């Protein structure tokens, strides 16, 4: 069953076609990687899937609902309820502790619950670092906090933008292991990346070039 369906979407900035008649189908529980060189339309696609932008043409169905014509206010609601975001630059609120950063996500979603937030940090192995400020955490630790933050509200879809782009190999593996765990639990994952190793961890890789889907690679070696 499709969680996300892009139907012939285009995003046009004046003369430039950032996305040109792209279609994509992601099933519930699927783990998909999106690859492509700079300027291939990865970011535009990511923004549209993340409910932060709307296509010029085409339909976007998320959980069966067409979000391509919604107001930005409504898009905010959908993003909050259904999507967990992970960014390349980690992006934490720098004056809040690790646990508070997780709670911010709860705060906007429903009710802050410190216990639950601590449990989420425990899942990424950072329960002891809960009271630390971002400046006291390493890059890998910060990204793990961001993973905890993304999964705290049990989103239907986790959307990760270059999640390991700024991490060393050890931390990259920790993050990928977390993704594997989430996948096993049935969470749908869409990971935008440059890194073939990260892409190979996914079930399927979509390669974008010049705003079009150039090819689709099924990962034969995917381990469940």
């Amino acid at each position, binding site marked *: 069953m499709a969680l996300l369906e892009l139907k012939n979407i285009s995003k046009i900035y004046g003369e430039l076609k950032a996305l040109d008649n792209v279609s994509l189908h992601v099933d519930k529980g699927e783990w998909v990687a999106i690859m492509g060189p700079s300027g291939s339309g990865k970011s535009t696609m990511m923004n549209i899937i993340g409910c932060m932008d709307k296509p010029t043409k085409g339909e976007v169905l998320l959980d069966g609902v067409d979000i391509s014509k919604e107001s930005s206010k409504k898009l905010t609601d959908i993003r909050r309820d259904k999507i967990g975001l992970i960014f390349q630059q980690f992006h934490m609120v720098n*004056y809040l502790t690790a646990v*508070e950063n997780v709670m911010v996500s709860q705060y906007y979603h429903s009710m*802050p619950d410190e216990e639950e937030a601590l449990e989420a940090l425990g899942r990424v192995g950072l329960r002891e670092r809960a009271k630390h400020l971002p400046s006291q955490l390493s890059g890998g630790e910060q990204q793990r906090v961001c993973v905890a933050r993304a999964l705290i509200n049990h989103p239907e879809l986790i959307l990760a933008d270059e999640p390991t782009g700024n991490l060393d190999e050890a931390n990259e593996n920790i993050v990928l292991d977390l993704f594997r765990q989430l996948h096993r639990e049935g969470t749908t994952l869409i990971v935008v990346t440059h890194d073939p190793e990260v892409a190979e961890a996914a079930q399927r890789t979509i390669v974008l070039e010049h705003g079009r889907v150039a090819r689709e690679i099924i990962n034969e070696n995917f381990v469940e």
Partner: protein
Amino acid sequence: MTKRRMFLRMITASLLRRRSRMLIALLSIGIGATILAGLVTIYYDVPRQMRAQMRSYGANMLLMPADGETLTEARLEETLSRFPEETLVGAAPYRYVRLDMTSRQQSFTTAGTDFDAVQKTSPYFSVEGAYPAASREILVGKEIAETIGVKVGSEMELTWQPTAVAEGDASADWVPGAMLSGSAEGWSGGSVSISATLGEDGKIAEITVDASTQTAEFGGRAQTDEAFLNQFVGKSLPLRLTNVTDENAGAGIRTAMSAAPEGSDEVDALTGATVTSSAIVNALNGARTASAASQPRTMKYTVSGILVTGGEEEGYIFMALSDLEALTGEDRLDVAELSVSAEEDQLNAYAEGITEEDNGVTARLVKRVTKSETAVLGKLQALVFLVTVVVLLLTMICVSTTMMAVVSERRREIGLRKALGASDNSIRGEFLGEGIFLGTLGGVLGAVLGFVFAQVVSVNVFGSSITFQPLLLPVTVLVSVAIAAVSCLAPIKRAMAIDPALVLKGE
């Protein structure tokens, strides 16, 4: 944990953990609030402060006797009791007479007054030497001092030359040890004359009567009847005749008798000689008045100081009111100069109240002083007001700029919050919350420091302290909160326009 607690936790964390940034914002609000609170305090205190200063320009109200009335010290006291104590800076009574300096055959206008009060109503008086402290010390105007060549410490003899004193003027005082003589019309037009000596106590010590013109068996007896004559001894003038039994006593006699004032000493009429007795009493009373009125009195005074004012006061001699009364024997004032610390409207109200009360006193404002005082105060207040408004605007710009910088610096954070699902309203609420928190803190800081600021200005400029206005605290806090909130609005509007996608672009 409720949403509200998380909200507060985020705001306090933002303020506490971003200390240096927030201190700058707090400082900008705090300094603005300080200057604002200080200026507002000064604005409201200026009239009070300046009014006290303005009083150095001299009296602003005059009290004078109403038509046909006499202004006495008692009446003045009564009138002054109308003024609240703190508004009456001073009230100087004045009585003006001409006194002769016989040795130089000159006469000078001399003012009897109260020197303590003069120093308050006319602070611009400058005295070389000292104000009179003891009795019989006087202040001589510079002009006179130069003309007659007196210096501080010189002695001057001044003579009071009484002019006509009204018949039967009981207030005319009495010289002990004086010899009195006089006469009055007795029975059938015959003149009865008396001579009397006063004792040191001012009472009659001895009296002789010449009633030779009167009928011997009636009025003539007044000359020799010891019981009748002895009753005069030891009594004070004026006298009143009582126990009138004579059937011949007509309207004229009653009129003469009733001329003696209330409270006069009484003597019984000689039986069968009421008209003669009445003539004797009238002659005594008349002699007393004539004596008191006609004798020039001289006293010696010491010059304690030379008065320099640059004005007409330099042509006057000033002495204590009590000294002048001793010399002239009169308790009356010509005018009282009042220095009242109040606005023009209030002064008008006081003056009208006094005049309308009809207590024999009329009040007038010294327009020259009150008008210029009002004008200067108005201009000064307008100036402070203008400065306050300018400071308010500058504060708003400063706070707004700071807030703008704070928001710009947090673009990424705002983008992140939006990406995490924050609605525009939550973003607005969070930044406004911080602004209000800062405004409150800055306002309290400003109210306290502003008072200190106003106090310092007041002490250095006006030389007096000010009282803390409790209302200023909530007002300053409210204004600071309002300024901080308004200043936040523009940056918040910008914040809400931030695209959440920017955080994804790996900036």
